[in-house]
């Protein structure tokens, strides 16, 4: 298993292929205690909130500088970290969907939780995350959410609580939009069919369950207007009323409601919805590992995270509670126990095939 040399090879040639290497200044003295922390995070309003609520006060308190760079999706983040020399970043932000890959591809250091005094502020679910492989913690969840349902109350009358059934309702033909990701289509369709999304078994048979899921996906395909790829595309679909009902993210819909789109609602259907979380992780080979741990410790303080989370639009992964947090669309009173996370090993085993079939369904070849 030439793992180490593979990484080196990938990095060298990757650097040649120039995938935008951010050469961040680390402390050349080596070891811990540099004075610049490289933070590679989600961009846009998330980045603004992270800077305002965590990075800026952290800079003040520790007299260091936080250098921020951003990505706009998890896949390009992984590829970028993978092809940059070790030590290019100190903190990266994997989400639930890519935690397993980040750990398996050896892109993150274990988090030494004993160095983080505020670690116990986290809900138990997030301290020992099911999708983080191995015994060590590799990710520090900041906030969580669900991939639930969005509907436009001007066109969709929904019983309360709404059901995924709506996304198979011929009444909304050509007015349905769902996310363009095979794994999510399989997961959500399984919920709709009442199957366990992490085994897909119907009477103990994965094949039978999968076939039910595919059939339902093909049925839905005939009603779908478009499969949205990015958060922006999602927003555009609902904002311009190209689509009336579909899947989406609570935080985005909250932002739209704040802009005056009162007819849009976000809900977690009665069958449940897939949970997710955005996390901090310490990049492999970081020369400021201790400072990065201090950054995580700092972020978990009640007074910091209770300001950050509502600003981003999602409830925090720690036990802090305010009225504002409880009013968020994704707020889970059970402290994250109600979140349905995916089983990354199950997905890794089958995702290629799901992707191919989803492609075929989209091309009308199914």
């Amino acid at each position, binding site marked *: 298993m030439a793992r180490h040399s593979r990484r080196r090879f990938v990095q060298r040639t990757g650097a040649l292929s120039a995938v935008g290497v951010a050469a961040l200044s680390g402390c050349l003295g080596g070891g811990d205690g540099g004075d610049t922390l490289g933070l590679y995070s989600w961009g846009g309003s998330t980045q603004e909130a992270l800077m305002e609520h965590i990075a800026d006060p952290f800079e003040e308190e520790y007299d260091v500088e936080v250098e921020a760079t951003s990505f706009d999706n998890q896949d390009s983040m992984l*590829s970028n970290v993978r092809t940059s020399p070790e030590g290019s970043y100190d903190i990266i932000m994997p989400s639930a969907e890519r935690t397993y890959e980040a750990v398996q591809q050896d892109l993150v250091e274990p988090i030494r939780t004993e160095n983080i005094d505020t670690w116990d502020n986290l809900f138990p679910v997030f301290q020992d995350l099911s999708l983080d492989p191995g015994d060590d913690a590799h990710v520090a969840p900041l906030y969580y959410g669900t991939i639930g349902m969005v509907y436009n109350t001007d066109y969709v009358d929904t019983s309360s609580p709404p059901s995924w059934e709506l996304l198979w309702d011929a009444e909304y033909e050509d007015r349905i939009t769902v996310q363009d990701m095979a794994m999510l289509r399989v997961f959500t369709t399984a919920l709709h069919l009442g199957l366990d999304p992490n085994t897909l078994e119907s009477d103990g048979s994965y094949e039978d369950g999968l076939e039910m899921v595919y059939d339902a996906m093909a049925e839905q395909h005939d009603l779908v207007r478009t499969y949205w790829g990015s958060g922006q595309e999602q927003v555009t679909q609902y904002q311009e009323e190209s689509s009336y009902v579909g899947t989406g993210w609570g935080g985005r819909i909250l932002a739209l409601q704040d802009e005056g789109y009162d007819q849009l609602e976000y809900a977690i259907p009665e069958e449940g919805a897939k949970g997710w979380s955005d996390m901090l992780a310490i990049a492999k080979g970081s020369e400021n590992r201790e400072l990065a741990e201090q950054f995580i410790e700092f972020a978990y303080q009640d007074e910091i995270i209770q300001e950050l989370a509502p600003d981003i639009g999602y409830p925090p992964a720690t036990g802090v509670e305010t009225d504002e947090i409880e009013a968020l669309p994704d707020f889970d009173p059970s402290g994250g126990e109600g979140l349905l996370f995916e089983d990354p090993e199950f997905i890794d085993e089958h995702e290629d095939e799901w992707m191919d079939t989803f492609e075929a369904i*989209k091309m009308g*070849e199914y």
Partner: protein
Amino acid sequence: MSGQPETGSGREYADQWLAVRSRILNAPVLMNGVQWFKARKRVLATAQAGIGLFWMVVFLLAPLLYILTLSFWESGTAGTIVQEFTLENYYAVLVESVSLSSFDVGNIFLLVLWQSLKFGLSVTAVTLVLGYVPGYFLGRSESRWLPVLLLLVVLPFWVPLIVRYYAWMLVLGENGVISWLSELVGFGSQSFLYNEIAVVSGLVQVLLPFMILPIYNSVAKIEDSLIESAKTMGANPVRAFYEVSLPLSLPGVVAGCILVFILAVGSFLAPALLGGPGDQMIANLIERTFLRGQNWPLASAMSIVYLAVLFVMITAFNRFVSLDELFGEGN
């Protein structure tokens, strides 16, 4: 010398300046330098070619070799790469079909490739129909406005591609111009987005200059006397065009078609932004395998096969209409 002229007159100032300039230009040092460079023109040319070659090797060939290497390695769990030689990726790309117990979908890569080639052909055909007349007109034009007209053809290049596609989305969208027109005519407002036609029309709009310019180029080279003599021999304008201008403009047509075809088949943004659920093209599939699938070896094999297919197609095309003759002419 003091730079200030004695008198304030501009004329004198200019004369002085010219004198200084010629003294500088004729200074022995500079003259020798120029001579030296003239004598070493070959060296310079080699150096320049060297820089270009170096650039190509580092930024085109090296990544390509890397991708070629990757395509023969195994993919491990969770997107890791195992450095063991395998032909598995090529088997998956070319042979394997997606099937479950009850149905057979076929090979996704080949399906998508076929669809891309169809897109490429229809875009090329439409672009040729729309681009030939303007190209021909510009080539035959003796108008003072020709430079302005040519500028208009290349003007869109100053607007980033993604902006143009977004603009096109606005044109085709529910509240767009076309929808407004359709309402006017009485068909009601409707969206023309997210389908095959949206992708083809978007690509045509973006790739049109690549068709017009080569056609303009070869039509502009046609000697007037040839057409005149055809007319003198009694050919009407239509026949003169058919017998003389059209054949002579073919090099431009071929060049335009090849450019447009390659760019259309490999397009990524158009299907991603304008296409509907089923309008997948090869670039989107490769990107998805590379990023979402985290399967670098498989995505690499796809890229290599795609390159090979294009190469074979262009070589075959070359056999039919000898490209060397077309591009090899030195005038």
